């Protein structure tokens, strides 16, 4: 299995009809958000906070973050738990898919005409059978510029 070193595992997620992949090393858990507390005056991307086994988790609405249209509100949502700099976050997605092993060598750079809101969080594209998977750079998703939003 010499190619093992090049294989990366991704947790796949559907957000607004598009398939995304999050590096599995980043993913802590997957949970259904309950008892979400909205945070007044927060940036629109922040869906709220909730208590997940005693930790306060900040939920980021991926649709908002990626500039996709807002969810219609009826469909259930699911969250992928990630951790960054000692803080817990939940990324709200539409649905969770299987875990894929993909060869890193096959990852292609972002097409130049990719929507800038997608491009800023994308670490490249994998061509799968019948669809494209965008690799999400979790750190960049969490890099919400507070000042720009507050202004």
């Amino acid at each position, binding site marked *: 299995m010499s190619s093992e070193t090049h294989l990366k595992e991704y947790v796949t997620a559907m957000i607004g009809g598009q398939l995304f992949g999050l590096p599995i090393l980043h993913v802590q858990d997957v949970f259904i958000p309950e008892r979400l507390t909205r945070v007044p005056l927060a*940036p629109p991307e922040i869906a709220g906070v909730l208590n997940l086994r005693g930790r306060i988790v900040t939920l*980021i609405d991926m649709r908002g973050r990626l500039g996709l249209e807002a969810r219609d509100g009826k469909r259930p949502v699911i969250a992928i738990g990630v951790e960054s*700099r000692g803080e817990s976050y939940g990324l709200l997605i539409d649905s969770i898919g299987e875990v894929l092993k993909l060869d890193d060598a096959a990852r292609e750079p972002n097409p130049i005409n990719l929507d800038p809101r997608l491009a800023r969080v994308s670490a490249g594209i994998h061509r799968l059978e019948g669809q494209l998977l965008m690799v999400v750079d979790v750190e960049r998703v969490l890099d919400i510029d507070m000042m720009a939003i507050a202004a």
Partner: protein
Amino acid sequence: MDELLRDFVTETNESLDVVDVELVRFEQDPNNAKILANIFRLVHTIKGTCGFLNLPRLEALAHAAETLMGKFRDGLPATNDAVTLVLATIDRIKEILDSLERDQREPDGADADLIADLERMVERVGSSAAPAAPKKAVGTLAPQVLERPLRPGEDSLDDLERAFRETPVDPPVVKHAKPAPADAAKDDAAAKGGHQSIRVTVDTLENLMTMVSELVLTRNQLLEIVRRHQDSEFKTPLQRLSNVTAELQEGVMKTRMQPIGNAWQKLPRIVRDLSNELGKQIDLEMQGAETELDRQVLDLIKDPLTHMVRNSADHGLETPEQRRAAGKPEHGRIWLSAYHEGGYIIIQVADDGRGLDTARIKAKAVAQGLASEADIDKLSEAHIHKFIFTPGFSTAATITNVSGRGVGMDVVRNNIDQIGGTIDVKSVAGVGLSFTIKIPLTLAIVAALIVEAGGERFAIPQLSVIELVRARSNSEHRIERIKDTAVLRLRDKLLPLARLSELLGVGQAKDRDLTSGFIVVTQVGAQTFGIIVDSVFHTEEIVVKPMSSKLRHIAMFSGNTILGDGSVIMIIDPNGVAQALGSLVTSHLTAEAAAGSPVPAEQTTSLLVFRAGSSQLKAVPLSLITRLEEIDARKIELSNGRHMVQYRGTLMPLVSMNESVRVKGEGAQPLLVFTDGARSMALVVDEIVDIVEDRLDIQVASDNAGVLGSAIIKGQATEIIDVGHFLPLAFEDWFRRKDQRASTKPRSVLLVDDSPFFRNMLTPVLQAAGYEVTAVGSAQEALAILKEGRSFDVAVTDIEMPDMDGFEFALALRGDPRCAGLPVIALSSVVSAEAVERGRQVGFHDYVAKFDRQGLIAALKEQTAVGCAA
């Protein structure tokens, strides 16, 4: 980092802190062999350890310092220069330690300069003294490392000295000792048997605290569940769990506690250095150093305290010459004290220096647009002093260099705000200054009030909540609307109100009903305001968790927490609310100013504008009005030819502004209610127009009874109503009125009265009579103003005042040569022959009944004429 090295750095830093303090003590008390022995031993230990760990720079420095101190011990005088040099050496050692901690090695560089100085000093202080340790001994002093773990007072100096003198020791001993310094420490402690302690890293404690916090949360959750199930078998064990958790929480909190003395340790040294630098003699007194508080809190107040002490030494205390001239002892004093009170720790920093320069602060506040000139004259001295905490107040160089005070006090307040504390200042010119800081013992777990606003729950820290008021349309406490601003008249104060849901932008805009809800009366610093919430649940001990870094920019929240039912709620930051409230008011005022005529920054008064009898606008200072009422006209009764209304259980007379104002027969009748003591009267008006902020500058005096004159308010000519005219119409004894016109010469009057009502009422009356009025609320304030060198043509003082009454005030004035010539007019509600006689004895020039306004003006006219002639 190498564990040995880390231990060394930690311990050496601690030792050096002690050396710092002890050296300063030693300098003051050079004959105290005990102190010197202690210093000597500590430095010696450091030196020994350095050799052991192969830190040549540190070792050479420590050695040179030790040699000099050896001279002191041999009986040579510890001169200021010599001590300064040793302190400088210790500073250098600290620098090296810092980089040692960072880079795990000694920094490059040489200390030949310091060492040379030290050696020169050794020679200078007396070559006749016992010979210093030979230089060659440097590298071989290692065996002393065995003493490293020793605690103060453990070994006699003699033993040490012997070891020190018998320098050559064979290296194998060192090697033998090397592997087990920790064991040695342990044995040592065990041998001592008494005070046993172990070193635990802060991280471990933090972790423990976090776990306990979690436990508290879980317990809260369990309690919540059990509350819902009436007779649960869990009840008893849960009660037990709850108690144990509380005890555990307390225990862990205790481990985080550190004596505040740790934050004070560096102060004696700082004060010493400053006193040398500034040529002042300063005594630093510290009380309550053993008072314990949470180390997190301790870290945050360390810098502010240092800053304040530095300020006191630098700017507060005068030079010895100045102090002599002021009749004070040459030695300036700075006090630091700390003690527990309730769940808080109170820290005071005080000095007996010159106090704050009120005039300077005033000028500065006006220059920065924080207050208008007219307003600032009305502010109490205490209020003016609070300006030093205003952000940016101190940045300008003028106040720093000239008056000297207020340097960075905004920064200090910020730090204290951060830990949910409060700071207050008291200053008496020429006598001294004191800061009082009140902070919670711990930050991790606080009591909070759980409230609801806009359908969501929030926690408000109990520390800043003063009281809770239930607002109902028919209750004592009613929310009133002044144009777009909601206010609450609570006892004597008008509180600005803010609806939490509005501040946070939650809930529906339409259900903003002012007749219901709760008002959380909150205080932040000197600012008191009300937060309107929809309902109040209970208080709960909450575990404060920091906001996510993505949400930390929201000033309205200080953190979040998990409630017993498992949901997350935001903790309101009262400071943020105060700021939002401030900017609301400011933006409101700016909008007003932009719409109307430009308002000069110096002089504005809040005025209530209304119509009565004609379309002519009339105004009265808002501060005079107790309440605005709208009553059902059918409730107005006619009794003995006068209109009356039943108001709060008594009959309140209604007075019409003039003949053309008709008391309405039906509908709602607007009234302006004036209250003084138990009496209330209401002025009948046609319509309340607005509340405005503008200059009150009466340009045309009026001959009409009841009108002081006309002023331009927001671009329109407006009659300023003389409330004093209407009060006796309701109660004949309220005032006795004479017909007399006042002089128009601009003379200055110092008005002293503890009742804001009279100050507010008399100020415009006297101003209208052509006097410049400075109103203060107490005799002490008046004396302070006079001490500053302000002069007045005449003083008018109330007799009945708390603390210092009018008689005492007059006596104090007579006792001061600068003020002895100041005519004093006494105001009193009781004019008995006896009081008049006593007044004459203490030196009152005139005695006027409190409500005899015209009599007062006549008396003023007479006294200022005398003053003029004199």
